[in-house]
């Protein structure tokens, strides 16, 4: 670091603010009244955002690519030296901005949403802790600091999913999320360990500088990348570890927006993008990622078609979108993935917050079949939601269009088949999003017991900001096709080594865009016909007609399969170990030694009959035996 910008050394303030918030709201949770906790938390996260923005500009103005800020030595054992350090570069600054920005908005939103909950202070404490962890994750200068954040967000997610802890199902969901994450984490930590053994360091800069000189396809690197991928799969809810995410909707809606849409679940994408150099060396892993990402994208989208819980739909949509990001990663288009991550953060947060607003208005009702006609009653929510829906569906010029199109075109470059499948997924996404939109906002209200009303300002304000971002976020990275300069991508590419170099011809690209747009339009129309024209459809929607749709409705029975294949056998194994091995073999084996000895003892005691003649005989017999013994020996 030639000219370390003195401002950058202040970067520790970024996570410090939320940590402070956590400590304040956590310690004083019994003293804080009304919205005090929310306000404190929001202000601190906002400060963190401001600090991030400040860092962003400081970094740009300094002209440096990256800066490392070492706070103290965390672990040093022999040649293992892990400083507690932050790496400030374009990628991390971007992530920081997303995390703190979206985070601040959601905090503000939560003030309204959580108003009246008796554990609101705990809520904000946990949210702040989450923000802190997430910032550690994105700012960490080595894999282990990243891992701290990685586990930390998992833990906060556990807390927040189970926030309403009176409901056992919620607790179960929380635990499931944590455990599934942990499965991934094990892979991750093993990956980190192998990384260390390979590169003698876990610092990003050290590892990557050495990795540049390595050959592609080195088995060790492939193994490392696969292990890291396992971690990412767990955290970013890809097949086969995705099932926790839909269940995680048990948490309060702002939590879903912040953790399970905008930030935490994208940690996997961030981590892989961060490790782009390594992944470039491992084509096998890349291919695995393509397959996983695409499969997840389509699979989740299909499940999303038949979900009736508003948050579940959004959850599957999140899984699906994460699948796209993985696809992009697998294609080597890391910056595209991060770009999609960014736009997704905007519009998915918006969708969730909108959903929260709706649920809030509906008095806690989450079944979309019971909603309807909210367009008039909640105009702000409607318009923001619409914007987000358009964005996620990929309608130009909304942000989702740019980011998704980038991925699709990259897929086409790789293999047209990939493109077709990805496009199919996008169409399905479009369909279920519009189904959601239509069912919720159009038609007439189907549930008469509640009287929906627009949410308070404190909730609509973040919606508006986010909708602006969702609409215009795409302009950050206008591709050259539209006369842009892909600034976002370029910006990131200072931190990420892209895996692909070739560009599509603009003609092909235009063709692709046009055809996809036509298809999208058709899908929207079709959805309109089904869900708006026919008012009775929603009722029929709940009745499964054939095996396939029934399977979709039941999420392809994945949970059931997992339960049958993993959970139950595990339980049986536990019972077997305890009831059979421990209690029937090991423990008795020890006891049996005692019992056997004691039985033998009784036998010996029986010899002592008290009968004189027996004693005499025994003595003579003993003597005789000894005589014979010495005569023979």
């Amino acid at each position: 670091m030639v000219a370390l910008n003195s401002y950058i050394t202040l970067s520790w303030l970024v996570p410090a603010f939320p940590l402070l918030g956590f400590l304040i709201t956590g310690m004083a949770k019994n003293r804080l009244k009304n919205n005090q906790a929310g306000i404190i938390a929001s202000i601190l996260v906002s400060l963190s955002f401001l600090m991030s923005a400040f860092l962003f500009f400081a970094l740009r103005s300094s002209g440096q690519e990256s800066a490392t800020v070492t706070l103290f030595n965390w672990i040093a054992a022999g040649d293992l030296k892990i400083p507690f350090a932050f790496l400030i570069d374009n990628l991390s600054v971007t992530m920081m901005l997303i995390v703190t920005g979206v985070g601040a908005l959601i905090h503000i939103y939560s003030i309204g949403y959580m108003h009246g909950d008796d554990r609101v202070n705990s809520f904000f404490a946990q949210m702040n802790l989450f923000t802190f962890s997430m910032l550690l994750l994105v700012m960490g200068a080595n894999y282990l600091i990243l891992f701290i954040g990685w586990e930390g967000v998992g833990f906060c997610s556990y807390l927040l999913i189970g926030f309403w802890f009176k409901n056992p199902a919620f607790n179960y969901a929380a635990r499931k999320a944590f455990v599934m994450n942990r499965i991934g984490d094990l892979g991750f930590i093993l990956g980190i360990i192998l990384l260390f053994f390979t590169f003698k360091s876990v610092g990003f800069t050290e590892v990557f500088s050495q990795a540049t000189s390595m050959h592609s396809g080195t088995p060790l690197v492939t193994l490392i990348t696969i292990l890291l991928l396992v971690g990412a799969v767990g955290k970013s809810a890809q097949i086969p570890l995705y099932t926790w995410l839909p269940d995680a909707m048990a948490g309060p809606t702002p939590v879903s927006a912040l953790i399970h849409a905008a930030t935490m679940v994208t940690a996997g994408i961030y981590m892989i993008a961060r490790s782009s150099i390594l992944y470039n060396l491992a084509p096998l892993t890349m291919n695995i990622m393509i397959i996983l990402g695409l499969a997840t994208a389509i699979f989740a989208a299909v499940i999303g078609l038949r979900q009736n819980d508003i948050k579940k739909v959004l959850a599957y949509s999140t899984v699906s979108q994460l699948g796209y990001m993985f696809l992009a990663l697998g294609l080597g288009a890391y910056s595209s993935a991060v770009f999609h991550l960014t736009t997704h953060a905007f519009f998915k947060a918006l969708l969730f917050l909108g959903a929260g607003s709706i649920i809030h208005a509906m008095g806690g009702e989450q079944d979309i079949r019971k909603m309807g006609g909210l367009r008039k009653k909640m105009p702000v929510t409607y318009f923001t939601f619409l914007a987000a829906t358009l964005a996620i569906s990929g309608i130009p010029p909304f942000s989702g269009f740019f980011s998704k199109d980038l991925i699709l075109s990259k897929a086409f470059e790789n293999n047209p088949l990939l493109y077709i499948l990805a496009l199919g997924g996008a169409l399905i996404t479009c369909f279920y999003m519009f189904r959601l939109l239509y069912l919720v906002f159009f038609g007439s209200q189907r549930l008469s017991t509640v009287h929906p009303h627009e949410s308070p300002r404190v909730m609509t304000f973040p919606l508006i900001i986010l909708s602006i971002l969702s609409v215009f976020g795409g302009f950050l990275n206008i591709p050259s096709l539209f006369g842009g300069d892909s600034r976002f991508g370029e910006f990131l590419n200072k931190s990420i080594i892209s895996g692909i170099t070739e560009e599509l011809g603009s003609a092909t690209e235009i063709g692709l865009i046009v055809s996809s747009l036509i298809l999208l339009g058709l899908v929207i129309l079709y959805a309109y016909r089904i869900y708006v024209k026919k008012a009775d459809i929603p009722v029929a929607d709940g009745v499964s007609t054939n095996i396939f749709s029934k399977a979709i409705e039941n999420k392809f029975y994945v949970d059931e399969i997992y339960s049958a294949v993993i959970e139950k056998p595990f339980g049986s194994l536990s019972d077997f170990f305890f009831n059979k091995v421990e209690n029937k073999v090991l423990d008795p084996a020890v006891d049996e030694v005692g019992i056997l000895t004691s039985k033998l003892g009784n036998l010996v005691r029986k010899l002592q009959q008290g009968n004189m003649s027996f004693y005499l005989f025994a003595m003579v017999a003993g003597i005789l035996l000894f005589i014979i013994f010495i005569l023979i020996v």
Partner: protein
Amino acid sequence: MILLFYLLSAIMIICALAVVFSKNPINNVIYLIVCFLAMAGHYILLNAQFLAVVHIIVYTGAIMVLFLFVIMLLNLNKAIILRKSTVTRVSAVITGGVFFLVLLAATRQTFEIHARYPFASDFGLVSGIGKVLFSEFLLPFEISSILFISAMVGALMFGKKDV
């Protein structure tokens, strides 16, 4: 002379067996006395006159009288049928037999026993024994008085009827 040996031996063995197998305690005592008398004969054969005399005094004179006395005292003079079970008795006989054979086998594979001193026929007389007893074996002799005291105390203690 050897005939005398066999004669005495035969008497001894027969009487000994009779002691074991006869049922009446009085008869047992009588057989035992005969057996011991025969043994005294052996002692004389072995030039151990002193022992022969002591033997007759101690065993026949004292111990066997003691036996008789106790039998009378306890009123056991009639044949009491106190028999062990047949199995026990048979196994007793077998054990005795086996023991005999084993010992015989062990001592038969014998070796040359070298006599320690040249043959002398007079050391078994009272004077010979007496010399040794009161020189070399004085200590044991004195010490054995303790044994007698204890035995006496014991017999008194057990025999006396406490009030």
